[in-house]
């Protein structure tokens, strides 16, 4: 089996989950986004989104900041440097294998 395909065995499983991949890919495309934006763009339920964001935060791939804009509560999510690096590595592995 070629080394490039063997690389798939060591793929980052935190990012590899489709919902988390979608969240990370979206956050890589923007500077930051709030929970509501991610909920509408991804189509995930709020509970599902919340669980995946927690997992990504535990892995230090994203940071979550809670604030207010007037009376509206904002939960801002932003990709960390580590998260960006992990996403770029993930893309390289997938591209190389396919």
């Amino acid at each position, binding site marked *: 089996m070629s080394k490039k395909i063997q690389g798939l065995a060591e793929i980052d499983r935190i990012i590899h989950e489709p919902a988390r991949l979608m969240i990370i890919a979206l956050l890589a495309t923007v500077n930051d986004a709030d929970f509501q934006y991610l909920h*509408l*763009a991804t189509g995930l339920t709020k509970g599902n989104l919340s669980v995946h964001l927690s997992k990504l935060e535990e892995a230090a791939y994203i940071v979550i900041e809670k604030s207010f804009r007037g009376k509206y509560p904002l939960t801002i999510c932003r990709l960390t440097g580590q998260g960006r690096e992990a996403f770029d590595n993930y893309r390289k592995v997938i591209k190389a294998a396919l």
Partner: protein
Amino acid sequence: MPISFFRSMTADPSTIAERLVIKAKFRDGLQDIYIGLTLVLCAAVEAVPYAKRAGFPQGSTALDVAFCVISIVLCSLFVVYTVRSRGAAKWVRERYLIERSGYVEQKLNKRKMVRFLLVFLAAFLPLAIAALFLFPTHSDRGMSTVIGLMFCGLDAWIAWFGRVFRFAIYSVLSAASAIFLAATSIGIVATLSIFFAFLGLVMVFSGFIVLLLFIRRPAEREA
């Protein structure tokens, strides 16, 4: 459902994410209104000298000065509008629509924008040059058709890449109106003015409909 794209390992996740971001940008109709107003303003700037020639007595210095002032005001308005209106759309979203659309800080990828512009020009510049040289006696009509097809191409790309269906309709209308106007004997200035005004008004009207439908959706609060 966007997640289905991310289940396929062959799709580039960055491209899909960009697609979702563009779809989100056009969700509330504000971009349509912004583009439509830009086109209407363009049409007004184009129409001033034509209106002066066609509708008013010639040789009057006062009238010449008045139309000069109107042109300068419209051009300045256009510049200020172009610079500030993107901020205005963002302000409207964050002030009035944040509960419905959420908050996002877009990333400006200048290199990608320049690359897109170069590809776009590379596609249409040869057509424009061909229109000038192949049809020297009808170069006006050729140029206006090419400009119409440029808008058609741009709208078609947004419709395809961002999956924003109404841009497919704008694309068809752009092509049809450009070809129809080129077939008439109207000069290029009037043709472009009518074309921009028509497309602009369609987009403003459509944008307002989309915005009204978007506002009527119940706002969801975070849990």
